[in-house]
């Protein structure tokens, strides 16, 4: 017997949490002397009001789908992968190497190569924390945090000392050659005669992200590995009884997680910047946590939450451009969303559970009375 119907858990609680976060954000905007209602309108029009806006929203969303899926798949095996940021950075490195040093004949081949490389690099960056968790019991949260910093230092070193072209000022790789440039949504939709802003960076990586959603769904709910990952996540002791190797599950789920986080690089590094810069991830690895929490670790939920955060990001960028609300306001909103959907989950859940329990008691009482 559940305390609450499933729809309340999946839909009602995130919605209420989101509302709470929105109200608090509104108060903050009010406190700095801006009109929250106007801000909201600007955010909406700036993020979904034109194909240009959509182009940016979807571009951000693509990043968040990858990192959100990464966190989500790790959640299924009860691993908290807070290292998406570092894994995505390394994914970017993989993309850079593949794009710079292999002469690709066509973007489609380059995309396949870059996807593989980014996944490989991202997975490799998750491998050691995963191994240490599985074999030495080192807390994965702490090790992945540490690996974020190590990744940043490592990338910094490579960009400054190895990959920076001679004479360049900023630590970044050279521009990737033209055959590796991915078609943008403008090009893709244009082929079907649908007009779409040429300026926006959303690109074919979005389709890869959607494929990844489907792939993760199949993996988690339709394959044996997914079955084992979920079993392990729910009960490690039961998994051991069933002959599911904890080491194998931790390693595989974290490698997949790291790989997905790494794959984000085909969007931001290959699709947008077309070169690798410092801090190319811009915190998307952390937003993945919020996205996975909001999306209840389900690919569909992750997809929707990623779009939501894409809107938040693009809308927030617009706010920073046209109002006195600094861009950091997005970080505040993001923090509140994580706080309410993740940490203060029970604050919403407890009263709701009581409510549903009372409702049911009332119902049984009336049926019994009849």
């Amino acid at each position, binding site marked *: 017997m559940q305390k609450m119907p499933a729809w309340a858990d999946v839909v009602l609680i995130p919605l209420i949490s989101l509302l709470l976060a929105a109200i608090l954000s509104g108060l903050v905007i009010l406190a700095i002397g801006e009109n929250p209602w106007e801000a909201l309108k600007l955010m909406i029009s700036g993020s979904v009001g034109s194909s240009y806006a959509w182009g940016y929203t979807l571009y951000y969303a693509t990043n968040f789908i990858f990192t959100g899926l990464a966190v989500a798949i790790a959640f299924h095996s009860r691993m908290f992968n807070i290292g998406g940021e570092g894994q995505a950075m390394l994914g970017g490195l993989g993309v850079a190497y593949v794009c710079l040093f292999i002469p690709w004949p066509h973007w489609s081949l380059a995309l396949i190569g870059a996807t593989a490389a980014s996944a490989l690099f991202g997975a490799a960056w998750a491998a050691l924390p995963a191994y240490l968790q599985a074999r030495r019991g080192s807390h994965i949260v702490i090790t992945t945090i540490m690996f974020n910093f190590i990744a940043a230092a490592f990338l910094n070193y490579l960009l*400054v000392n190895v990959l920076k072209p001679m*004479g360049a000022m900023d630590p970044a790789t050279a521009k990737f050659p033209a055959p590796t440039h991915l078609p943008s949504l403008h090009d893709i939709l244009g082929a079907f005669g649908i007009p779409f802003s040429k300026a926006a960076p959303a690109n074919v990586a979005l389709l890869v992200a959607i494929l990844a959603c489907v792939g993760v769904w199949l993996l988690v709910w339709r394959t044996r590995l997914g079955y084992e990952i979920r079993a392990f996540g729910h009960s490690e002791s039961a998994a051991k009884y069933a002959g599911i190797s904890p080491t194998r599950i931790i390693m595989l789920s974290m490698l997949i997680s790291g790989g997905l986080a790494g794959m984000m690089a085909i969007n931001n590094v290959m699709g*947008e910047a077309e070169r690798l810069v410092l801090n190319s991830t811009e915190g998307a690895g952390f937003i993945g946590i919020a996205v996975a929490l909001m999306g209840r670790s389900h690919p569909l939920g992750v997809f929707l939450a990623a779009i939501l955060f894409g809107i938040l990001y693009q809308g927030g960028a617009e706010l920073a*451009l046209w109002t006195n609300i600094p861009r950091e306001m997005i970080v505040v909103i993001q923090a509140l969303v994580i706080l309410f959907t993740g940490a203060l989950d029970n604050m919403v859940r407890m009263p709701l559970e009581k409510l549903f329990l009372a409702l049911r008691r009332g119902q049984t009482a009336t049926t019994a009375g009849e």
Partner: protein
Amino acid sequence: DLGGKFDKSFNESAFAGATRWATETGGTFAEVELQSDAQREQALRRFAEAGNNPIVMAGFGFATALDEVAADYPDTKFVIIDMVVDQPNVRSVVFSEHEGSYLVGMLAAMASKTGTVGFIGGMDIPLIRKFACGYAQGVLAANPDATIIANMTGTTPAAWNDPVKGSELTLAQISQGADVVYAAAGGTGVGVLQTAADSGILSIGVDSNQNYLHPGQVLTSMTKRVDNAVYEAFTAGVDLETGFNVMGLANGGVGYALDENNAALVTADMQAAVDAASAQIASGELVVHDYMSDETCPGLTF
């Protein structure tokens, strides 16, 4: 550029130029401050889409993004400071920082009692080495026996905004005997000047006139008139002349600051010597070596 609008230095100077234009002409301008490299292109496009013209960007970091964007908006004029972008609708403004640095280097050498002076750069890039190299030449010109200690804050944009590190580097240089320190480090320089003032030694500001930050304790500032460049661009408006533009001593693009805050520090002798050198450089009689021309520097190794 990264480092923040109110770095009391480079970015603030650009902002001041824009504000001056706005107050004088009553015009309005849109501005945005960026947090990361990845946002540059988006901001440029957004401004171009919104019909802003001209668009001025302060900092070499915009070069790649601008190269991309400029072609997409041929009717918009762009101005980039500190970097050359070869597009028909772009005006590239670069400064002869080595010349200004030469002058303050002379002042430093003359003000120093220990014969040891320091240089603290921001991010270790050729541009900042250009500052350092000019400075070193000036120091050696005034005092051939002087020792120059040069440090860079870091290798990433974070180096523009790390006052703690600036402060630590200053202390390190002081312990090595430096009693005048030149900070060419954006926001990091705030920490350098602060620590120098706290420790009772002299410092030299950069870009804007920073003498007022610690009156009587900042020897001078190497001024780089980013504000003028911005002001001129805005004044010219859509009729802006594109192409390559060098701002040096000759056309007042760079110089050193003298005001009531440092009047007591710069003696008449010192002023005379520096002004003489300035005139020689302006006339081409004296050539200060530009690090960026061949990535070498006489008098300083990095």
